[in-house]
């Protein structure tokens, strides 16, 4: 039978339909993925963006000598005996004076009024005064942190209705805050301190920051980079270019692939057993965290480096050997430069993975509450030996706390973490493009 090219036969129709179906599946899968990503990002951003803003009360605080310096001669030893409990009434009085001056009605008890100001503010003022004792006796203008509930009110998390049921605040307090905001005494502004301040106790979420966590993560990334990159690249080069192909190298290869799939918490247990219990490094130190993350990152780096080395055409090796280069010269002069973009990308992706890793860090104690900025080196603790936390652990930590103000901060930390990851990936892409564009 003669068939026309202009009419499709049944077989072709079926084939075309199958192809169209397959494309549709693919498209819908991508749409689902994009949609999920969109929801994820929106929820993270909408929940977390407000943590970059903080509510401050601008007050002219009179610093009375009789309360803050009983010695009268600015003797620091005497002055430091006044704790933050001594400073709190000073701030409350300043607020009272402000309300009087502005003619704002105050139905609150002194204690409840004091609760408008963060407990952290007393410490801030005290630190300023101790750093500069001459301030005593003067009236100084401070930007004081408002308490978490007031902050929440201006961010929409606390409402009059919820305040009525809340032991920590009241609708009356919010009314006063609103009145102060109307005249510009209370302001919500961008809060750099979120990235600088250390974590704060459960009672003062408004003062909690990521400083220690960012520093801890940075130290760990340094440890990972310094250890994992050279070890990973060296072992890949050896395995790929020099090692004989036999049963032993096969075994090693299989095990590297297996290690890449080992749950990260297992590395945490390993770290706990070896680095802390056996080698007696400091608990919660970035050194131990970095070592554990190095173990975890090594397989990733080795696998991607080997893939990058494999993708260099063998003709380049032949060419180098053909003009009399030694094996090592052919690898270091020709193969490695060509594989460098791949190695870099693999390394940065490994680092990004390590940056976001939480589980193993919980086991080595990085979940601890740390308020002291860890020093990179101290004679007692050694290199990266001081206790620190890490970004993902800080997220975990904050989500565990009862005060809802920590919720927003947890999301803020997630955004910060994501921004760091995005930057690292962007750097990876940039380096890749840059090195590949050369030829």
């Amino acid at each position, binding site marked *: 039978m003669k068939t026309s090219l202009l009419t499709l036969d049944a077989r072709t129709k079926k084939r075309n339909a199958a192809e169209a179906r397959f494309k549709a599946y693919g498209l819908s899968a991508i749409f689902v993925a994009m949609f999920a990503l969109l929801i994820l990002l929106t929820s993270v951003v909408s929940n977390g963006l407000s943590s970059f803003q903080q509510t401050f009360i601008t007050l002219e605080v009179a610093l009375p000598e009789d309360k803050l310096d009983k010695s009268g001669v600015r003797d620091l030893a005497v002055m430091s005996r006044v704790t933050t409990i001594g400073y709190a009434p000073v701030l409350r009085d300043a607020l009272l004076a402000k309300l009087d001056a502005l003619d704002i009605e105050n139905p609150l008890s002194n204690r409840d009024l004091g609760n408008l100001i963060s407990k952290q503010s007393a410490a801030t003022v005290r630190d300023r005064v101790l750093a500069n004792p001459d301030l005593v006796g003067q009236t100084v203008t401070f930007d004081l942190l408002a308490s978490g509930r007031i902050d929440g009110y201006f961010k929409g998390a606390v409402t009059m209705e919820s305040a009525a049921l809340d032991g920590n605040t009241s609708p009356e307090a919010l009314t006063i805050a609103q009145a102060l905001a109307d005249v510009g005494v209370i302001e919500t502004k961008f809060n750099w301190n979120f990235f600088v301040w250390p974590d704060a106790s459960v009672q003062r979420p408004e003062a909690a920051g990521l400083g220690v966590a960012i520093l801890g993560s940075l130290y760990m990334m340094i440890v990972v980079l310094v250890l994992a990159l050279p070890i990973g690249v060296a072992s890949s080069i050896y395995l790929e270019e020099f090692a004989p192909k036999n049963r032993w190298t096969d075994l090693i290869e299989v095990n590297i692939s297996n290690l890449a799939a080992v749950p990260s918490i297992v590395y945490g247990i390993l770290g706990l057993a070896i680095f802390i219990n056996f080698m007696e490094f400091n608990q919660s130190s970035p050194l131990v965290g970095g070592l554990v993350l190095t173990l975890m990152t090594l397989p990733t780096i080795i696998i991607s480096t080997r893939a990058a080395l494999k993708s260099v055409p063998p003709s380049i090796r032949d060419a180098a050997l053909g003009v009399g280069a030694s094996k090592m010269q052919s690898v270091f*002069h020709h193969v490695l430069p060509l594989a460098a973009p791949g190695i870099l990308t693999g390394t940065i992706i490994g680092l990004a993975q390590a940056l976001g890793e939480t589980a193993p860090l919980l086991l080595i104690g990085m979940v601890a509450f740390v308020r002291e900025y860890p020093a990179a080196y101290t004679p007692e603790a050694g290199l990266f030996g001081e206790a620190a936390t890490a970004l993902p652990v800080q997220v975990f930590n904050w989500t565990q706390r009862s005060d809802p103000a920590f919720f927003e901060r947890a999301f803020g930390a997630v955004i910060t973490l994501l921004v760091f990851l995005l930057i690292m990936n962007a750097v990876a892409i940039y380096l890749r493009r840059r090195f590949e564009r050369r030829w």
Partner: protein
Amino acid sequence: MEDLTQMDRAMSTQQDIKISAKNVQVYYDKNHAIKDVNVEIADKTVTAFIGPSGCGKSTFLRCINRMNDTIDICRVEGDIRIDGEDIYDPKVDPVQLRAKVGMVFQKPNPFPKSIYDNVAYGPKIHGLSRNKAELDEIVEKSLRKAALWNEAKDRLDAPGTGLSGGQQQRLCIARAIATAPEVLLMDEPCSALDPIATAQVEELIDELRQSYSVVIVTHSMQQAARVSQKTAFFHLGNLVEYDDTDKIFTNPEDPRTESYISGRIG
């Protein structure tokens, strides 16, 4: 009568033996790839290896500069000498050998570096120049010998990979002769080139004969006939026949050679 024989001998020894192979066996694992090859390759001559695919001609070529060392499962037995020195002697470093025995590969494989760096790489790693001026001179000389100088002199900093296929192959030849080798091995150097580029490379091979002993593996019998003075025919790992090119193509002794050059096997 005696004078005549003496003259005869003078004729035959006029061309010195550069490479001599005796009882060479090559095994890939258990596969016996080269079987008992004996051959003597003369200096300042182009010697062609022909034969059907998989007959072992490339394998044998790669024995001459020990490129087979890079293949784990490859084992070479027998005796290969260059200027009377056993190149498989444990004292021989293949790196030094390969500087002396240059190689050009089937596919043009310039380094992804500039034209200059491609040629200068060999002299640099072997310390053949004391300063930049000497290196420049080596690069120019090599590029001139490879008939690439006129095309490349204005863009020595351009990437070697940006040249055309034929130019790339000539660049590879320049790179190979920059280390001042004594022997040049060519593994199907024209198989990836168009006829014009092939003609250029063939012309070049003929000129290179003045200074080097050239061994070329080729699939094209016409090419072997055009460029070589001696031809060796390989079949199934055996060296079937080795003689003057004219003789091989006009009056082969072995029936297998005749079948191959007339297109019946292979």
